[in-house]
C-alpha cells in the first residue's frame, strides 16, 4: 500500500476523531479543554528528543536542546496548569457543569 496514502488515512481518521470527540463540550470547559489540548501537542518533545539524540552536528545539538526545553515547558506546564484549573471545579459544582454539558 502506498506510503503517502497510509499517512493520509491516519490523518483523515484522526481529524474525525478530534472533532467528534469534543463536539458536545460546554462553554464552561472551553479553557481547560483548550489548555489540555495545548499540553497534548507538547508531545513534539518526543520529536525534539529523537532529532537531538540522533545528530552529531554541534549547532544542531544546541538548537535541539533549545527545542527540548521549549517543548517540555509546553507539555509539562500545559498538563499542570490544566489540572490546576480543573481542581477549581469542586465536587459541588459538577452537577451544574453536567447539565450545562447536556
Amino acid at each position: 500500500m502506498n506510503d503517502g496514502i497510509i499517512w493520509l488515512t491516519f490523518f483523515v481518521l484522526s481529524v474525525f476523531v478530534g472533532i467528534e470527540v469534543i463536539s458536545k463540550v460546554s462553554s464552561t470547559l472551553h479553557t481547560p479543554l483548550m489548555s489540555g489540548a495545548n499540553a497534548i501537542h507538547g508531545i513534539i518533545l518526543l520529536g525534539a528528543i529523537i532529532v537531538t539524540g540522533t545528530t552529531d552536528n554541534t549547532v544542531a545539538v544546541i538548537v535541539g536542546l533549545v527545542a527540548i526545553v521549549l517543548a517540555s515547558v509546553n507539555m509539562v506546564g500545559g498538563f499542570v496548569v490544566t489540572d490546576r484549573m480543573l481542581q477549581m471545579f469542586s465536587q459541588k459544582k459538577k452537577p451544574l457543569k453536567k447539565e450545562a454539558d447536556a
Partner: protein
Amino acid sequence: MAVPTWAQLLYLLCGVCFILALKGLSGPKTARRGNLLGAAAAVVACVLPFLYLDLDHVGLILVAIVVGTIGGVIGAQKVQMTQMPQMVALFNGVGGGAAALVALLELNEHLSHGDDPNWFVWAATAFTIAVGAISFAGSIITFAKLQELMTSRPVVFPGLPILFGASLIATVVLSVLLVLEPSMWIGIVLGLVGLLVGVLLVLPVGGADVPIVISLLNAFTGLTVAAGGYVLSNTLLLIAGTLVGASGTFLTLLMARGMGRSVTNVLFGALKGGSTLGGGEASDRPVKSAGPEDVAIMLNYAERVIIVPGYGLAVAQAQHTLRELVDVLIERGIEVDYAIHPVAGRMPGHMNVLLAEAQVPYEQLKEMDDINGDFKDADVVLVVGANDVVNPAAKTTPGAPIYGMPILNADEGKQVIFMKRSMRPGFAGIENELLFEPNTTLLFGDAKDSMGKLLNAVKAL
C-alpha cells in the same frame, strides 16, 4: 531508525490515551481524569526513544528536559486564575517554536545525509517551519496583550495590511522554493518570515477576541506537530497533532459563536477597519452614585435579585464576600441568582471557576440563556466588576468591538447597581451607556472592600 514493533504498539496506545484524554476533557465529570491520562501517556511516549534508540547526548537531553519541566511547573503553579489565558498562550507558543526548530533540524539532517525524500516530505517540513513560527510569534504577542505588557487594543498602522499580505506571499514563495531545492538558508528565512506573519496576524486583534486567537493558534500548533510527525514518520506525533489541530479548529468556531463573532472577522476585522475602538479613557459624564447603606436598603427590600459577576470580581477576589452577602439575602427570603456570561472574565468559564472556588451552590449559577428572560422581573441587578457583558452597545452599536456578542439583559432590571472603582471602561475599551441610565446606581470602590461594607450594611438592617 526503524521502530521496533513493541514500541510502535506503545506509541499507538499513547495515541489512544490522547483520544480518551480529549474525550474526558470535554465532559465535566471526567475532565480531570482525562487530563491526567493524557499526561501519563505523554510521559510514557517520551521515555520510549531512550529505550529503542541508542541516543547520543542523553545527559544534555535530560538536563534540558529537567530545565523545561521546572520552568513549566513553576509557571503553571505561580499563575493566578486571572492570568490563565496568557499562560496557555505562552505554553502554546513555545510548543510551536519547538516544532519549527525540530523541522529545521530534520531539514538539516536530510541535507547533510544528501538523501532526498519525496517532495511531500519537503512540503511538510516547510509547513512545520512556517506555521510553527507563526504560532510562536502570534502566541507571544497574545501573551503580551493579555499580560498588558502592551495595549490590549487592536494595533493598526497604515502599511499593515500590505505588509501582512506581502509577508504571507513571501511565506508561500519560500515554501515552494524549499520544496523545489531544499537548503538550510531558505528554511531559516522561512522561519523568520513566519515570525513576522505571526506578529502581524495578532497585532490588529482586539483583546476581547484574544481567547479565540489563542484557540486558533493552538490548533495551528497541533497541525504543525502533525506535519512534524509525518516528517519524522512518527505516527504518534501525527495522530496527536491532528487530534489537537482538528479539535482546536472546531473549538475555535464554537468559542467564536459563543462570543457572537466570526473567526475571519476576529482576525481581519480591524484590518478591514471593521471594529473602530473607543479610547478607553474614563468618561466624565454625570452618573448617579450611592453609598453602601443606600444599596443595602435597595437589596433588602427587593424580592428578586440577580448578580452579574465579571472580571472585576476576579481581580478583587471578592467572590467569598459576595457569597456571604447572597447567603444573608437568601436567609431573608430574597430570591437571588448569579447570571453567568460565557465570556465574563478573561477566559471562558472564568466565573464558574471563581464561584466554584467560593463554594457557591450550583443551583444559584444560571447560564446566560436560562436567565436572560428573568431580568425584567428582577427588582435589583447587582453588577459586580462586570461591564462589557452587560453593555447594550453589543446590540445597538454596529462597529463596536463587542457588537454581536450576546449579552446579559441587565438593562431590563428595575434597578441596576454597578460596583466598580472608576468610570473606566471594560476590556473592550468602550463606554457603557447602561452606566448613565436613570435606573442605574454606581457604588464606587474596589469590589472587595465595597462588598465588605455592603455586607455589613445589609446585616445592620
